[in-house]
């Protein structure tokens, strides 16, 4: 089936920005020209809209296998395409953990059967994410992983982390590290600071993150591993990464939309939907994170989409699950808080949400002739009010509920097929 995306402004991800038509056929971009006419093509009217390379999320929790009540590959990727994402990399903290080729195969086959977006599994660094024995990285690589992470379970043993880096580097695997010194974060549930003091919740100090980032930088420097810092949240973390980059360390970093756009102040009132790891920090941290994005210290905006059930959150703050469900509104959040306020451009957004993560995951990127037609059409003039009840994700846990956002995903094409259309109807659902 031929499709023509007509009259939109294309941001192709290679620095180009032009008003043109795109012909899509056989899952690929066949032509990009001023005007393309065809009698037998499906027409997408993109007039007044932007045509972007589909977003790539390198930090998603799909929860399957093991926690299907929170999310499944079906609902998670449904949410992803509704958010304009065409590829998601899913974290290994499933049950069983993604620490062997069988689980990788399982996820790939379920994604093929009922996934909407493309799915790239991330393997665990240690067996069962127990932080004891290194996982079968070569087998995992052959099964299809490109990155390793023990995400929420930071490797406290520095010797083990070093061996993971040395072994994993033989296979060029990206080391995605959740940086948290558990001894410092202790029983903390929110940022340690003014608000935690005020409302009597235990705090997570910023040093908990920075100490671990510093350690991992030192280890990456000595091993040459490709280090990627997950969800950076503090000012001093940004500075550590900036210095490491200047120092030639092979390091990249990501930040979440909520850490970029919200501060600890909204925890006052005990809304458990504001509880995430890393916690929402201060205005000063947020400013530093934006600065870090702008000067290239932070490469990627990743959602850390962490869906939970209502029961996981309808409890006192201290025992509520950490995490925010955010993949389907990430674009609007970034557009509203950063692009609309003139802090970054839409081209930057494309780099952070599509091009850079695609490069790190070694998948195709950008809109050009011959590439897979993974394309997202957005309308930056439309506004809407977030209503979590309309989320495709099973996770309704969002601190943005009720907020007015600008920027709507109109169409998402995966391999040339219209997988999502703004009216919520799905034309096709095979990836």
């Amino acid at each position, binding site marked *: 089936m031929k499709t023509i995306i007509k009259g939109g402004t294309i941001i192709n991800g290679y620095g180009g920005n032009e008003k043109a038509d795109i012909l899509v056929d056989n899952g690929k971009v066949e032509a990009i020209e001023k005007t393309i006419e065809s009698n037998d093509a499906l027409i997408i009217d993109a007039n007044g809209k932007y045509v972007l390379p589909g977003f790539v999320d390198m930090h998603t929790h799909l929860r399957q296998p093991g926690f299907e009540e929170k999310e499944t590959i079906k609902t998670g990727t449904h949410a992803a395409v509704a958010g304009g994402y065409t590829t998601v990399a899913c974290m290994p903290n499933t049950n069983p953990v993604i620490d062997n080729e069988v689980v990788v195969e399982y996820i790939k086959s379920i994604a093929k059967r009922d996934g909407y977006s493309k799915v790239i599994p991330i393997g665990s660094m240690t067996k069962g994410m127990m932080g004891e024995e290194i996982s079968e990285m070569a087998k995992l690589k052959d099964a299809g992983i490109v990155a390793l992470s023990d995400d929420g379970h930071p490797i406290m043993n520095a010797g083990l982390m070093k061996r993971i880096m040395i072994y994993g580097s033989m296979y060029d695997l990206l080391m995605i590290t959740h940086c948290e010194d558990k001894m410092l974060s202790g029983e903390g549930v929110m940022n340690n600071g003014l608000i935690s*003091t005020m*409302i*009597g*919740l235990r705090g997570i100090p910023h040093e908990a993150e920075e100490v671990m980032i510093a350690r991992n930088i030192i280890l990456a420097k000595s091993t040459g591993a490709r280090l990627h810092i997950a969800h950076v949240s503090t000012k001093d973390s940004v500075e550590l990464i900036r210095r490491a980059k200047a120092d030639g360390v092979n390091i990249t970093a990501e930040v979440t939309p909520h850490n970029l756009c919200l501060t600890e102040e909204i925890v006052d009132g005990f809304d458990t939907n504001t509880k995430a790891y890393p916690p929402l920090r201060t205005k000063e941290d947020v400013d530093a994170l934006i600065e870090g994005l702008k000067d290239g210290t932070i490469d990627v905006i990743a959602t850390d989409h962490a869906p939970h059930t209502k029961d996981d959150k309808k*409890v*006192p703050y*201290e*025992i509520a699950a950490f995490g925010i469900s955010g993949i389907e509104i990430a674009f609007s959040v970034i557009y509203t808080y950063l692009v609309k306020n003139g802090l970054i451009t839409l081209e930057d957004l494309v780099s952070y949400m599509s091009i850079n993560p695609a490069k790190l995951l070694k998948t195709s990127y950008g809109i050009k002739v011959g590439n897979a037609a993974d394309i997202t059409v957005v309308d930056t003039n439309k506004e809407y009010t977030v209503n979590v009840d309309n989320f495709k994700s099973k996770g309704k846990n969002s601190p943005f509920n009720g907020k007015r956002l600008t920027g709507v995903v109109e169409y998402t094409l995966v391999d040339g097929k219209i997988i999502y259309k703004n009216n919520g109807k799905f034309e096709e659902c095979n990836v």
Partner: protein
Amino acid sequence: MIKKDVLGIRDMSKEDLIEILDTAKEMKKIIEGEKISDILKGKTIITIFFEPSTRTRLSFEMAAKYLGAHFGNIETKTSSVIKGESLIDTVRTVERMKADVIIVRHNMSGAPHLMAKYLNASIINAGDGLNEHPTQALLDLMTIREKKESFKGLKVVIIGDIVHSRVARSNMWGLLKLGAEVRLAGPATLLPKTFEKLGAKVYYDIDKAIEDVDVVMGLRIQLERQKSGLFPSKDEFARYFGITSERMKLAKKNAILMHPGPINRNVEISSETANSGYSVIEEQVTNGVAVRMALLKLLCERRKNNENNY
């Protein structure tokens, strides 16, 4: 006009505080007159404590009975909540017993706020985690008011494990709202400097902290904090942060000594000081019943005025 729920002192206005304290003064007459009033006839008051505290619970029970209300008490273990039986469901069951006011104590900050959001009954926070203990603060304020008349310019020092103390937080909010100067003192591991941003003065030298104050308030120190490495020993705490008669001499001549009880004698307060003329600790207990009566009365009146809204 107080809100539907009493969750903390921080979200109360100065006028609310004065109204409650004035009402408590009236209520104290009922206690002293030893006659039961029927102000709350037909009302049902239930306490639900997820963390044991006989003293506070009993104080609420007395308050309800002095006003002629039905009173019930439920004790439950927090562990059952963690197991999955949701806190809200538990309390909703209690609400179905036609409770007008539910008094909640919970070991987690914000638990009463969560209930207040989902329930029609009025919730009184009887202590939540490290956050607030509004009724304790109200009885402290009442006691101070009886002895000192005005809060304006009054110097009050709160000493001990401030960061883990809901009593300290509630008192700080109340005293600041009423115009007093609030000093906080304790070891730095138990007292972050951040408290200064909230309007208090922070001291790590207790002698300086106590100098020239009108009110000295000790807090109960949890001895297990020593095991978590927050202070080195009971003895070191007693020597450097304990309230002694020597130190009380640094305060104003007519200073009073308060403590929410029960006291670790010779740790946060030396035994002789606790029994000295400074101490108003026993009066605090009586005033505790009076302020709780006042809250029950005001909440029930408010409910009557807003009947259609609940």
